[in-house]
């Protein structure tokens, strides 16, 4: 019996369904239920499920894709609800006027608070957004003149679409789910496109995202603002369904429900938001005896999902019915970037202190087109800090970083990246969930018109490093040497005028090092200026045309590689006797 099951299991992947099968079946089941079986009460639950689905789709954008655990999402929902509630019941405005306001007010608030708050690290961001939610709740309860206080406001009108007053029951459910379909489609397109890809990289590795030319702050703010619009829309539809608005719409259970829906359904997935909402809104019906404490079921579902199935229900479905692997694009060389001759980057008197330590102390260097410059020095001598200063991850205290006539010192990493500087990291970091091709294509998101184009160009970069065969592999589980090569391909895909490499040969075997040296020479031959931080003199000295040695942040030696081993200061500080 067991064997039979396993045989069936082995067959499963060959029974590949059309790409839309899952979604299609889901929609059909939902429609059939709504039209044929649902009682008036059932339709009401379905309508509310639609409201939560819409809110959760917005939450997938900020939390699922953007990775920011916004606990203000419930507040945006409530603000949208109050905007419709107050304007509809007190001012007599109709749906056509209140609905846009319900989207606009949360949007404006999100833009206002987002600018300062989004800079915060994850746990501070969660705290700050929770604080915002609490302030909004307090205001709603304690301003009875505007909001009706703790009792709220009754008499909110229903939805009127083009002169048609939507009655309760099936029509209202259809209208709400129409909004879900609209919002879901938009979010799905965004998530699959360049914007969604960029946002996931910002989530997985904000530092790398910046050095690949992506405006981390801008992307996060846009995601936060867009999520607020979805929450506001859901809040508005919620009060149209309930016909009253009270502080309940601002309380934590709504936030908790949306979070649970997103996590249980599958983080970052539009289908997950919808599946999660339908499931979780029906779940309390089976636990009627818990009455108002039905949230206990949500707590259990949330805990079980996060522990047992971190990718949620859609993740489980993906495992059961794996998608056919996407076909690789044809590699395509990106349009050539003209790199001028002569000096490309001039660093003048760059200085950086951490507390009392001067990590980089008046360093100057010039990187010439087509030349490889070696940067050496003992541990803690400021090599990585120098690379961080040039690439914008640290802000210098003084000095200039000149690219042509433009001073890039202190500019944002993405601005510096766009000026033509690319880098790799000492500790390679690739998004673990992505394929090699997707990871490299991230470098092209800012420049190319579509994902397909970005991937074609990414494959070109991988080919240049003889790594095209890795393209379909997942980044997770790649051995160290290949990870370094993929990261180099990602930097190369930027077509940089200046390429900064932080210990590119660390952990490589001698054979791999020789191969890497060949690749670096080929890159330099196209006119790119290279700065290579390295400890392995046997690798670096034959490669570099010029070497700079740092000690305690200060230049100790600058000159041809032949002079390094004989320079008494370098030998004393770094190489040691007998080097």
């Amino acid at each position: 019996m067991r064997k039979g099951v396993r045989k069936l299991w082995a067959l499963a992947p060959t029974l590949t369904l059309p790409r839309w099968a899952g979604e299609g079946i889901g929609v059909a089941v939902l429609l059939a239920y709504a039209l044929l079986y649902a009682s008036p009460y059932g339709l009401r639950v379905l309508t509310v499920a639609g409201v939560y689905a819409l809110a959760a789709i917005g939450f997938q954008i900020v939390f699922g894709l953007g990775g920011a655990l916004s606990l203000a999402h419930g507040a945006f929902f409530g603000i949208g609800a109050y905007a419709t509630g107050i304007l509809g019941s007190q001012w007599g405005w109709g749906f056509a006027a209140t609905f846009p306001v319900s989207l606009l007010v949360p949007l404006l608030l999100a833009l206002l608070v987002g600018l300062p708050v989004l800079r915060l690290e994850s746990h501070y961001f969660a705290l700050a957004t929770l604080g915002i939610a609490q302030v909004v709740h307090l205001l709603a309860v304690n301003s009875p003149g505007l909001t009706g206080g703790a009792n709220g406001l009754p008499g909110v009108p229903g939805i009127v679409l083009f002169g048609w007053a939507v009655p309760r029951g099936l029509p209202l459910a259809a209208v709400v789910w129409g909004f879900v379909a609209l919002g879901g489609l938009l979010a799905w397109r965004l998530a699959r496109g360049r914007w969604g890809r960029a946002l996931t990289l910002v989530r997985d590795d904000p530092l790398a995202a910046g050095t690949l030319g992506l405006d981390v702050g801008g992307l996060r703010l846009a995601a936060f603002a867009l999520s607020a619009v979805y929450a506001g829309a859901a809040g508005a539809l919620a009060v149209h369904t309930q016909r009253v608005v009270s502080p309940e719409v601002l309380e934590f259970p709504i936030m908790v429900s949306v979070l649970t829906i997103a996590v249980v359904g599958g983080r970052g997935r539009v289908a997950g938001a919808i599946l999660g909402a339908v499931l979780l809104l029906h779940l309390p019906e089976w636990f009627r005896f818990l009455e108002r404490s039905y949230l206990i079921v949500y707590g259990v579902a949330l805990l079980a999902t996060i522990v047992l199935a971190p990718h949620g229900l859609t993740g489980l479905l993906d495992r059961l019915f794996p998608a056919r692997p996407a076909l690789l694009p044809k590699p395509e060389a990106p349009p050539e970037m003209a790199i001028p001759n002569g000096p490309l980057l001039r660093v003048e008197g760059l200085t950086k202190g951490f507390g009392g330590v001067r990590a980089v102390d008046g360093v100057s260097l010039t990187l010439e087109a087509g030349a490889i410059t070696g940067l050496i020095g003992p541990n803690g001598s400021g090599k990585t800090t120098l690379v961080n200063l040039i690439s914008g991850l640290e802000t210098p205290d003084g000095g200039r970083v000149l690219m042509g006539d433009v001073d890039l010192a202190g500019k944002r990493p993405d601005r510096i990246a766009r000026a033509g500087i690319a880098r790799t990291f000492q500790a390679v970091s690739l998004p673990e969930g992505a394929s090699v091709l997707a990871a490299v294509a991230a470098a092209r998101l800012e420049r190319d018109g579509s994902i397909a184009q970005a991937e074609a160009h990414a494959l070109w970069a991988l080919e240049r490093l003889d790594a095209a065969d890795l393209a379909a592999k997942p980044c997770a589980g790649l051995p160290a040497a290949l990870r370094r090569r993929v990261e180099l391909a990602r930097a190369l895909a930027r077509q940089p005028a200046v390429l900064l490499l932080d210990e590119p040969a660390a952990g490589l075997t001698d054979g791999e090092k020789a191969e890497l040296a060949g690749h670096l020479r080929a890159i330099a031959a196209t006119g790119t200026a290279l700065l290579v931080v390295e400890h392995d003199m046997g690798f670096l000295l034959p490669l570099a045309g010029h070497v700079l040695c740092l000690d305690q942040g200060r230049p100790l030696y600058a000159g041809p590689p032949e002079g390094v081993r004989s320079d008494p200061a370098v030998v004393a500080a770094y190489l040691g006797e007998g080097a």
Partner: protein
Amino acid sequence: MITLQLLVNGLALGAAYALVALGFVLVLNATAAVNFAQGDLVMAGGLLGVALAPHLPGYLPLPGLLLLPVVLVLMAGLGLLLAAAAYLPLRRRPPVAVFISTIAAGIILQNGASVLFGPEPRAAPPLLGGGTLDLGGLVVAEQSLAIIAVAALLIAGQQWLFGRTQLGRRLRATAQDPEMARACGVPVTAMILITFALGTAFAGAAGLLLANRYFVTPTAGGDLILKAYIAVTIGGWGSVPGAVAGALLIALFEVGVSSVLSYPVALGLLYATLLVILVARPQGLFGEAARRRA
């Protein structure tokens, strides 16, 4: 005289908040994870006191004080359970996973409590007695003094444990660098479990202390976790003395502003101040103690 009176009230409230914040920061340091259920654990401690009180033999004096060790032990057990269910399975995952799992644990506690006890506010017995003392014209509730004394004793005990014992050294080593501690032979998982037990026991003690004068409802945890969080933030993320100082500060702020204006205004101002601090000085008023973990 009124100022002094408020000061004592503020100190008593702050002493209880300090226990909450201390438990929060100990777990934070040991695991680099935010325990979002800390507020609900306070509530659980309070309700545990409420539930146990009728079972004490009536002829014993000082009901509240006798309950304290029972609550501490039972809550420590709950802490172990929390660690086993919501932390240990997720320790290799991004911090946000534990954030969510502890939110889930909080929801379960909160709604479980409302199933068992109903939504009404309940009061636990006072530690010593419900009376007041007249200290040269300054009238102080016995409970306020008892809260301050118990909290001070517990915090001193924690300091002694961490500062003077072999177990404490191991706990601190785990908090400083778990990888290194493991390499040196410290049983890191056991240390994390002990930290969870300790942090939860402190939350429970705070719950018992608060549940007499301020009552306890199943939904009380939400405000408390925010206050613990704020205390730890203004005290410097990860700093133990900072957490205690931060808790005292926000309690004094709360009592002071409530007496002049009202409690909702005090709460609103507190959150608004938090937002300003986060934006202007995210490292806290006294500097950040927790290392960034890569």
